[in-house]
């Protein structure tokens, strides 16, 4: 297989996700690639709260997310054959980095949303955290 690429997808915003995927495919063209899609269930910010959600609940949510993501990818990119789908629960940028350490892709593609300037300053974006801390090349798509 060719280039190994990790592509985190935010499934909450479906239209943006589909648009992002289409842009990515345009970028790749006819290159042979091995796509690894990933979606993250944002964890609860307060550990105390998360202890109320049982493990099974989280597991079932993750499997639903996985099916959803697989469906989305198939709909958006019918021509793509070989790909893997991964889901995780936790802090978004940490999970992306964790998985990328395991997977060792050559490239991480990030379809970036454009939040307002103020939002970016206050919360900081997942994108910039991944860019700063990743071990491989990162392509931010706008």
């Amino acid at each position, binding site marked *: 297989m060719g280039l190994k690429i990790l592509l985190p997808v935010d499934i909450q915003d479906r239209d943006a996700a589909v648009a992002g995927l289409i842009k990515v495919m345009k970028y790749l063209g006819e290159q042979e690639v091995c796509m690894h899609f990933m979606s993250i269930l944002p964890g609860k910010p307060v550990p105390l709260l998360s202890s109320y959600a049982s493990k099974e609940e989280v597991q079932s949510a993750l499997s639903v997310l996985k099916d959803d993501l697989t469906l989305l990818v198939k709909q958006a990119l019918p021509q793509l054959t070989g790909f893997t789908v991964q889901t995780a629960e936790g802090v978004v940028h940490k999970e992306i980095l964790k998985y990328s350490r395991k997977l060792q892709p050559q490239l991480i593609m990030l379809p970036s949303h454009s939040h307002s300037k103020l939002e970016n300053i206050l919360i900081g*974006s997942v994108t*910039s955290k991944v860019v700063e801390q990743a071990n491989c*090349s990162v392509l931010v798509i706008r």
Partner: protein
Amino acid sequence: MYNKILMPVVLSEPNSWKRALPVALNLCKTYDASLHVLTVMPDFSMPMVGSFFPKDFSSKAHTLLKDELKKFVKENIPEEIQVQRIVADGSPWETIVNIAKEIDADLIVMAAHNKRKFADYVLGPNSAHVVKHSNISVMVVR
């Protein structure tokens, strides 16, 4: 898909282009895009410091940098690729973002050098600033 690719380089640091240049050239060939090589001369952010340098320092440095960039392009970029050389001064990331806007580039290819481990963790590297503030796609090569 891409027409104008901007690549910022620091001429004195081969790390800043050793890896990014092949990627940029590859992209240029694939999309038949023109390459815009930018080098930034940092200015003195404090007027106090600037006053210690002779008056013609800035203009002399500018010409020197121009020549060096010319040499760099001649040595490293094959002739069939359309190249524009740009020398600018100011704060590096701000200049990169501004020039990208000015020339209407659609992709920035830049290297990340994570040399200053601790400083980068606290301040964030140049590349992260560019990613945060530019409106176009950014490829960070590692």
